[in-house]
């Protein structure tokens, strides 16, 4: 076994929460607003319920093969189709970490225009390489410290923007455009929860594997609750049409804060907290990627892989998209299908096969 560390169930849930919330804030909001307008919050609730299917599938899969990561399960128990799917998963992890790195850069580029892209990429990859090198326990602990601070900041933000210009009646009428926009929005939310697939690499190392399903559902529901603020706030302030056109709706919301003469211009703090969130997210996927490759190649340790992979990620994130429009198109057209496939469809398929397979084996042994 490559990874020796153990993290608690809560830490695992928290990792999933931070990782999902940060991309939800930065980019998924625009997608959901675009499809569902003022009914986005309904789409979020429905999407979470759908997304829980994938989460439960991943957790059950991990329980069926205790102590094995997703990649190990695929490479050891599913013969050659498993190996192909395993490689697909590794590519998927690579894609997600590249996406997160690029997203981090794009967020910074909105405020620090003169700084070149590679500078941001270097900074974040040095930081995350260090975290990944130190292993899972460090990552879990860092996140356990940072997430409560992020949440407190988020709640403060809701109260600070709660001035007379925040008009929650903008959320009316409920289901005014019929059910189809909500369905589209909830599909993208479901795809978003597909990112939980990365937890397949983490869940074998939790302390109480029996409570994994509970942990997964807990993570999903908390993510939804955290996501309710950003999904209603920009619509209440800017109206549904304008919010859908914004590049970073929550960033605009933070810039709107003006409480008294002193408490305004929160942009830099928002960027700071995004940095922390992105750092956790990139580290998590980076860790999953390097551990997965290490296990696929049956190496004694994943650590020699960290620096070469950091190079690959850095280069990948720079050539990932030529411009922001291309990046945005990826989010609208490819992100959701890829995540639906990797996060829901394949895990459900795998768990069904595993159940049939295990039952047959039990019958044979009896």
């Amino acid at each position, binding site marked *: 076994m490559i990874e020796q560390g153990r993290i608690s169930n809560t830490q695992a849930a928290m990792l999933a929460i931070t990782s999902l919330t940060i991309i939800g804030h930065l980019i998924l909001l625009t997608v959901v607003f675009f499809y569902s307008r003022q009914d986005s919050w309904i789409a979020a609730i429905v999407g979470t319920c759908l997304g829980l299917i994938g989460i439960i599938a991943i957790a059950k899969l991990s329980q069926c093969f205790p102590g094995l990561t997703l990649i190990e399960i695929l490479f050891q128990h599913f013969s050659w189709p498993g190996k192909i799917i395993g490689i697909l998963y590794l590519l998927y992890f690579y894609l997600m970490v590249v996406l997160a790195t690029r997203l981090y850069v794009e967020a910074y580029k909105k405020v*620090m225009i003169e700084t070149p892209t590679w500078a941001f990429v270097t900074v974040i990859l040095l930081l995350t390489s260090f975290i990944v090198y130190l292993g899972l326990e460090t990552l879990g602990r860092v996140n356990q410290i940072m997430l409560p601070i992020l949440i407190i900041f988020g709640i403060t933000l809701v109260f600070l923007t709660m001035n007379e210009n925040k008009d929650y009646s903008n959320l009316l*009428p409920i289901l*005014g*455009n019929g059910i189809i926009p909500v369905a589209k929005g909830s599909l993208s939310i479901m795809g978003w929860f597909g990112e939980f697939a990365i937890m397949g690499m983490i869940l074998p190392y939790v302390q109480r594997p029996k409570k994994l399903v509970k942990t997964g559902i807990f993570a999903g529901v908390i993510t939804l609750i955290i996501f309710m603020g950003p999904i209603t706030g920009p619509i209440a302030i800017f109206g549904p049409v*304008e919010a859908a056109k914004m590049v970073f709706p929550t960033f605009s919301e933070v810039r*709107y804060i003006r409480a008294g003469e002193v408490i305004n211009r929160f942009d830099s703090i928002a960027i700071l907290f995004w940095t922390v969130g992105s750092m956790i997210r990139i580290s998590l996927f980076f860790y999953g990627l390097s551990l997965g490759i290490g296990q696929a190649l049956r190496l004694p340790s994943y650590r020699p892989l960290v620096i070469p992979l950091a190079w690959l990620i850095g280069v990948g994130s720079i050539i990932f998209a030529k411009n922001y429009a291309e990046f945005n198109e990826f989010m609208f057209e490819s992100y959701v299908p890829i995540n639906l496939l990797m996060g829901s469809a394949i895990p459900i398929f795998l768990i069904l096969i595993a159940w049939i397979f295990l039952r047959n084996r039990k019958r044979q042994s009896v």
Partner: protein
Amino acid sequence: MRLTQRLMILQLLFIPFLLSGCWSAKEIHDLGIINALGIDFNEAGEFEITTVIVRPSELFPESVGGPRYGKQNRYLIETATGQTIFEAISKLSKSISDKIYFGHLDVVVFGEKAAREKMIPSLDFISRENEFRPNIYLLVTKGKAADVINTSPEFNKTLGLEFKNLTKSSRFAATKMVKDISQFMNDFTSNTKDPITGVLMTANDLGINAKGEDQESQYYQKGRPQVISLDGTAVFKKGNLKGFLDEKETHGLLWIKGDLKNDIIVMNLGNDKKVSIIIRNSKSQFIPYITEKYTKMTVKTQVEADIGEVTIPNLHLDSNQIDRLNRQLEEIIIKEETTVLNKAQKDWQTDIFGFGEAIYRNQPLIWDLMAPNWGNGGLKNMKVDLKVKANISRYGLHKDPSNPDESR
């Protein structure tokens, strides 16, 4: 072990490279902070941008004894023209040796011609630029924006703050028609309402006179201080300016929207008998009623007011009298509401009240059918039923007005 420790020390040597500061550092003394922006559209078909550029080093001098080398202007007012706003600003930038910074822009003022013809292209620049904030006030002036920008701040450090505080801290004037850029964009993009915003004027045009103590001061080149004032509402239709509402009509609009606060209403009770009322709060509710033949909108307004001044010698303020005053106030409100409805709903056919929004929220599917004809006929043919409930709740620190020779 020794070797790794030595390598660690070698690594530490690289840390000072990180101390050189960040890439995009902007020192405040290198910034030319644009504080107010006026947008005009001139006869030649070009945008004309007038800006107030604050110089932080002069406004907040570092040394206690004031600036050391001579006295410089605290801000510059510059004008430039261009095919687009962005081009005009780039021309402006050529004449400024500092870096132009928009982060502290407080207000954008549109000249009448620019608002009538070029509102939509102008809005794009404002919502796209990274440094603009979503809570910049957006105002319109009759005539040229340059005239308003050329005034000088009297109560605040900068002109932008003066505009901003004018809308924020006004005690006896309604300011709810002033919108910031995000509220304006919200109304602008929705097909259920049309945007409005406040009108800014130089106060001398409104008959308010201001006189400074120190007339020789560098800002008052025209001989007397020019102060600014809010005056009425600018009404938009399909994104471009349609017309202006005067003070009474603005009242009517704000009654209907339930936004009127802190404004004075003078009730004229026959020859020289006047009661001035200050409006503390107002609320309104739209109840749409739709059949195949006609649409009806019931507007319920609730008003809370105080008595501010009484010039009727023998007025006895008991509950009956207050009731009578309430009825009279209601009449005035309905009259003002009708005036603005005649103008905006019947003449201009612009939905600044948000009637469409009320229908959409009530019956979204029916609204989809009504929306295409809303601007040409639908709104005009809608019946509006006005219901007002006024309540004068207090009369200050004094009950009946005092008269000469009153004591027994």
